[in-house]
């Protein structure tokens, strides 16, 4: 493999990883949005049974998004 071809292949691989991370974070945000809607409905109805669970779930999604973003930075430096 010539150096230019290798560089192009690495760049293409890099782009795939970036897009995959972006899509994964977008899916996590969507899940968080749904959790927020469920929590809001629960709060307004006075039921208040899933409020804490939704908050924990949302925090876990945020942690996963942070990990993915960090993975991207580490990969760039490495």
């Amino acid at each position: 493999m010539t150096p230019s071809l290798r560089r192009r292949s690495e760049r293409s691989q890099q782009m795939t990883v970036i897009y995959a991370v972006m899509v994964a974070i977008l899916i996590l945000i969507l899940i968080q949005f749904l959790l927020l809607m469920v929590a809001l409905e629960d709060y307004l109805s006075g039921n208040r049974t899933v409020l804490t669970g939704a908050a924990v779930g949302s925090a876990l999604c945020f942690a996963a998004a942070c990990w993915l973003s960090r993975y991207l930075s580490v990969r760039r430096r490495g």
Partner: protein
Amino acid sequence: MADTPAWKEDFPISWGDDSYVTRRGFTKSLVLVSCAMPCANDALVAREALERRAAPASLAPMRIGSVQGLPIGGSRVFEYGGEPCLLIRLDADRTAAYGQKCTHLGCPVLYRKETKKLHCPCHEGYFNAEDGKVLAGPPPRPLPRVTLERRGDDLWATGMQA
């Protein structure tokens, strides 16, 4: 270099470069959005905890008003235990009172004299005016009932039943 105007040397950044967002930068913005979501969830949890702490353990009796002041089939809004409530005069001898917040999403319910039902206009929920039970629509639970006591011509609220 003769083609370059003199002012460009003082402002070397182009508009295009200035507003350019990299994919990595965009991903970081997504992480910020993701951070805002649990913050909103936590705000709800905190608000709920504050409301629970502020709620009194037991409600003191409160005078609502005279029975004669309310016409038959009429209704009246009053506040009890910090919550809006609805007093209804069902007929000459019977009255009932309920929390006014719909158990679906908290919209205020209104008494419909013609049908003798409590109606939530937000999502078309209906409650029985006699016992507060759900008749139709999305509400999951009956309305909380305010226990009433008649003292002479006056009506007193003495407690709340979920």
